[in-house]
């Protein structure tokens, strides 16, 4: 997922008239296994999942008949599901804002050659190597909701720093609990966004900056008119990558709060809970809704990438 989305924009050179210069049977045969596998495991299964979501199939065993969009109607009139959708949006907004701000700030601080740059970069990036399950172990401890004398984790730290007003119930808060889950997520992925922005900064030709300075641009104007526009493709990639990761959030909540905790419900967790209950239709419907939400973010991006390829 990583490196790569940004570069999806990069196109292979295709000199005019060369296409089809060699037979196309051989390359098609070479890629055929992948096409078949993706066709079955991605597109075939999406179709089959949508079909399941339209059935009366709420217990282990075969379907009791076709029910149209009933399962979806049930979900969208269910307060629990609406609450978990709201949680998902809050979480995504916080996660995006946090990683973009911190990632940009770190990249900006490291942009000019700094002493110890590679050490700082390694420190900021390392949480990315750790699984959400492993980081969940320590973050569950850090985000312990006890306060006062019994406080542990971050609340304890705040207490001993005389910052008691910062103590809070973290993910057990009924209204904003989900935001506490965004804290470890931001901790984990900000370094990655930093690396993307750093690449963006390094990609800006020095001559551009020089030219702007020669024209008497102030430091702010330089950023406003030269640097930011040059970084916007990177920011877009970061939004796509972090956004789609965020909409799939699952591991972190399972590791910190568990599947039964109400304040951190999101669609992916509900999908798993319904699956373990044998309610395949509801589970499939939640999966399809998640797919649609992700598609709103991804499809325009894929289409524009494809158009750019064609224009070449």
């Amino acid at each position: 997922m990583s490196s790569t989305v940004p570069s999806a924009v990069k196109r292979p050179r295709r000199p005019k008239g060369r296409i089809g210069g060699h037979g196309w049977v051989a390359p098609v045969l070479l890629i055929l296994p992948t096409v078949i596998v993706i066709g079955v495991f991605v597109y075939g299964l999406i179709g089959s999942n949508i079909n399941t979501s339209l059935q009366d199939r709420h217990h282990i065993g075969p379907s009791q008949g076709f029910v149209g969009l009933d399962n979806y109607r049930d979900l969208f009139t269910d307060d629990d599901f609406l609450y978990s959708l709201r949680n998902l949006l809050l979480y995504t907004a916080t996660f995006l804002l946090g990683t973009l701000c911190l990632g940009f700030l770190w990249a900006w601080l490291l942009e000019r050659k700094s002493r110890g740059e590679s050490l700082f970069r390694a420190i900021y990036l390392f949480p990315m190597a750790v699984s959400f399950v492993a980081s969940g172990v320590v973050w569950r401890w850090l985000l312990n909701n006890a306060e006062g004398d019994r406080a542990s984790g971050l609340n304890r730290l705040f207490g001993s720093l005389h910052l008691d007003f910062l103590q809070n119930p973290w993910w057990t808060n009924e209204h904003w609990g989900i935001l506490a889950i965004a804290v470890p997520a931001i901790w984990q992925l900000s370094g990655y966004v930093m690396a993307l922005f750093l690449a963006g900064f390094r990609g800006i030709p020095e001559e551009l900056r020089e030219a702007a300075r020669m024209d008497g641009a102030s430091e702010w104007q330089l950023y406003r008119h030269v640097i930011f526009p040059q970084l916007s493709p990177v920011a877009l990639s970061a939004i796509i990558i972090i956004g789609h990761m965020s909409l799939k959030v699952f591991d972190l909540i399972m590791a910190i709060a568990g599947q039964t905790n109400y304040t951190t419900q999101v669609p992916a967790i509900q999908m798993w809970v319904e699956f373990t209950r044998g309610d395949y239709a509801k589970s499939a419907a939640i999966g399809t809704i998640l797919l649609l939400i992700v598609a709103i973010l991804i499809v325009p991006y894929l289409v524009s990438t494809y158009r750019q390829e064609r224009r070449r």
Partner: protein
Amino acid sequence: MTTEAIPAAVTSRIPGERSRVVGRTIKYVLLIGFALVVLLPAYVLFVTSFKGLGDATPANAWKLPESWETAGWSRAWEQLGPALGRTFAMVIPASIISSMLGSMNGFVLSKWRFPGADVVFTLILFGMFIPYQAVMVPLVQLMSNLGVPNGVPSLIVLHVVYGLPITTLIFRNYYAGVPIELVEAARVDGAGMLRTYASIILPISAPAFVVVLMWQFTSAWNDYLFALFFSSSRNGPVTIALNFLASGQLQDYSASMAGALIASVPTLIIYILLGRYFVGGLMAGSVKG
């Protein structure tokens, strides 16, 4: 950047110099402050993993252990050991197979193209973004119909299949930077597709393989979702075993934290040893945007 540092050092008595020093100080204070915050959870993991059972109390939460004990580590090792072996047995073949396939796909999609290659590529790419929840219910059915046993075999198949879009993408972008003349020259010499791939493209693919193998290794190693649906704590990978250990009724903090460290060692080592290449690959990939 560097060119500016030199005149600044030479003309250190000009008026702007003081604000530059202040600015630099603020910068390093911020960099170090953020580094400490990022390292905070690592400190907690490390320190708590060496605490004895009576020592992991709220009052001692942020303190060093009263006595450094390794009992938590041995309890964690007992629980995670077998799962670690299974995770290696799953991750290594999964990353090698999907990298090889990705390399061939990337070659065909960038250097040995066929009509409709862009459409095929875009359709493959979509597979990278789908939430797996959207295929999971029929996927469980399909894997059982195909007769792939739960545990390591299932997870190998799944990580290969759902790894294909990303590996294809990385290799395709890498090969896009390779001059077409290399391929043309081989063709003029009468080499077929497979010969060209094996003798021209494969030998220059090492940097892309590093990035792809790292990526696949890390994401398969850290996966929890597929593991949850397709294995149990009896035959599952280390993420399952770790969550089982950490979510027990008895909050064994020292063993859980030691377990989290054990489960993270392989990916951390890879990042520390090869992180440079990874960031390098990341940059090579995104600069051209």
